[in-house]
Every structure is written in structure tokens, then in C-alpha cells.
């Protein structure tokens, strides 16, 4: 699993991310569209693509996409 690929999969859950380009260090709560629906979409995307079960708390304690990436990596091992 590569962080850039994960970042792309993350970004594809949004319609548009405005002028802010999403990168691994992006704080995802700053994305204008961000909502509880997107949190659920990220959980479902990670389950579908990476076969990892994230919890609402995993999202809550992450701030950047790379934080989330580390949690997923730790759950794959």
C-alpha cells in the first residue's frame, strides 16, 4: 500500500476539494465538504480496498491523511 495511492482513494470520496489540493499531510477536517457521511465513506472505502476495519475513533484521533494511513498499515500487519 502506497501513501500516494491511498491519498488518491481518499480524495475520490469528495466531489471537489476546492483550491486545496489533497496531499498526505492535508488535514482532512479542513476539507470544506467534510462531514460524518465522508467519515463513513472513508471507512467503507478502506474496508473495500484494503480489507481493514476502521472505527469512528480511528478517524477521530487522526488529523491528516498520513495519520490514517499509519493506522491502516498497523492494522494490516
Amino acid at each position, binding site marked *: 500500500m502506497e501513501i500516494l495511492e491511498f491519498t488518491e482513494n481518499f480524495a475520490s470520496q469528495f466531489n471537489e476539494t476546492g483550491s486545496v489540493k489533497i496531499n498526505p499531510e492535508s488535514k482532512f477536517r479542513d476539507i470544506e465538504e467534510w462531514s460524518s457521511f465522508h467519515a*463513513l*465513506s472513508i471507512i467503507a472505502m478502506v474496508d473495500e480496498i484494503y480489507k481493514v476495519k476502521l472505527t469512528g*475513533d480511528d478517524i*477521530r484521533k487522526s488529523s491528516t491523511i498520513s495519520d490514517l494511513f499509519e493506522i491502516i498499515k498497523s492494522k494490516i500487519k
Partner: protein
Amino acid sequence: MNYNPYNLINKTIFITGASSGIGKAIAFECSKMGAKLLITGRDKERLADTYSHLEGSGHLMFAADLSVENELKNLAERLPVIDGFINSAGIYRLIPFQFINREEIKKIFEINFTAPVTLCQGLVKLKKIKEGSSIVFISSIAGNMISAIGASVYSASKGAINGMIKGMALDLANYKIRVNSIIPGMIETNLTSEKLTAEQIQNDIKRYPLKRYGKPEEVAYAAIFLLSDASKWITGTNLLIDGGFTLL
């Protein structure tokens, strides 16, 4: 004074999903009202725990996984004749619409709709549901009045129950069997999703005019009403218990 139109004395009540949550609470409360209980659930240990806490005597437990056709058939054959059937077995899964798939739909419908309906049909066919009995499905406000984010398939399965109880109520009126559902708002059980954070749940609670989620026993009281002779002229309806949630 012993007057109590809600008592369940001399009634044999069959409850699915009795090993946890709402089903467990219904089993406790019905036993306190004098019913003889037949309880079923998937988890043997937790089912035995429910069983050990029932008041009165003569109760029976049957561990079974109702999503397995043979286990369902076998259970229908082993059950004695009943006066009431509470279907409380169910699953709640949150998945955004764009991620749903056939497998997910099949699984949720199997547990929330197909299994309980087939079990009910089997019992009717085997003449195990007495004339004058009451059948109650624990459904939801989701799919009947509202939905929630990520709950499209769950809502659909509960909406399907609404259509089914109306048709069943008509057909089974020929046998004086009543069929109703209870549609609760969110109830404090383990059936909430770990995909949600404590903060999201706190915010959701604030949306209820009565400022809390319901308690399992509050659904049980409604179930007792629908099982008792006090509701003898009620069939094909959805009893709403939601702390005022759908008023807003």
C-alpha cells in the same frame, strides 16, 4: 385488586434475538408478566444468561442461527404451540450507498427480513400459532418514517417488514392472528455502530426532543401491550416509540 388487562398469564411467547438488546429485555419483562417463554438466539452462552434471569418457570431455550435454513426449519419443528411471536433478531450496519453491494444487501435482508418472515410462515403452516395469537416484529423508524446516513439497506429491510406485516395481517386475520410491528427510534443497545464516535452519538441524542435514546425495556412494554389481550382489535399497524424524534 388483580385487574390487569396487560398480563400474559397462560400465554406461551416465542422470542427471537433473545440473547441481547431489545429481545433480551422483552424476554425479562414478559416473564414478569407471567408468560411462559421460548427464547432463541445465536450465541449459546448469552442465551443461557437471558434464560437464567427469567422469572417464573417452564421456560425453554433453543440456540439457533436463523440465517441457516436447516437450523430455522429444525427450530420451527421443535417449537410447541405458541400464543405470541416476537421477532427481535436483526442487524444494523452502516454503509454509504455508493459502497453497497449484492452481498451486503443479501446479508442484511436475510437476517432482518427473510429469516423472520420464513420462520413465521413455517410456524403458521405447522399450525403452531394458535387462533387469537399476536405476532410482533421489532422494526424501526428507519425505512418507515426516516432514514440515517449510511443506513439505506438497513432502512430498506425494515421498510419491507412494513409491507409484509400489512399483507400478513390480512391473510392471518382468517385465523384471528394479529400482526403488528414496533418502530422504535434509537435504543441503547450494543447494536449501535463502532463506526460512530461517542461525540457523534452525543450529538445524535440531542436531536431527540426527550433528550435521550430509548431503553430496551421501553420497547418491551410496547411488546407486552401488543401481545396482551388489551390490543385484541389492533392488527397491521406500526407502533411508534421514538422520544419525539420524528416530530421534528
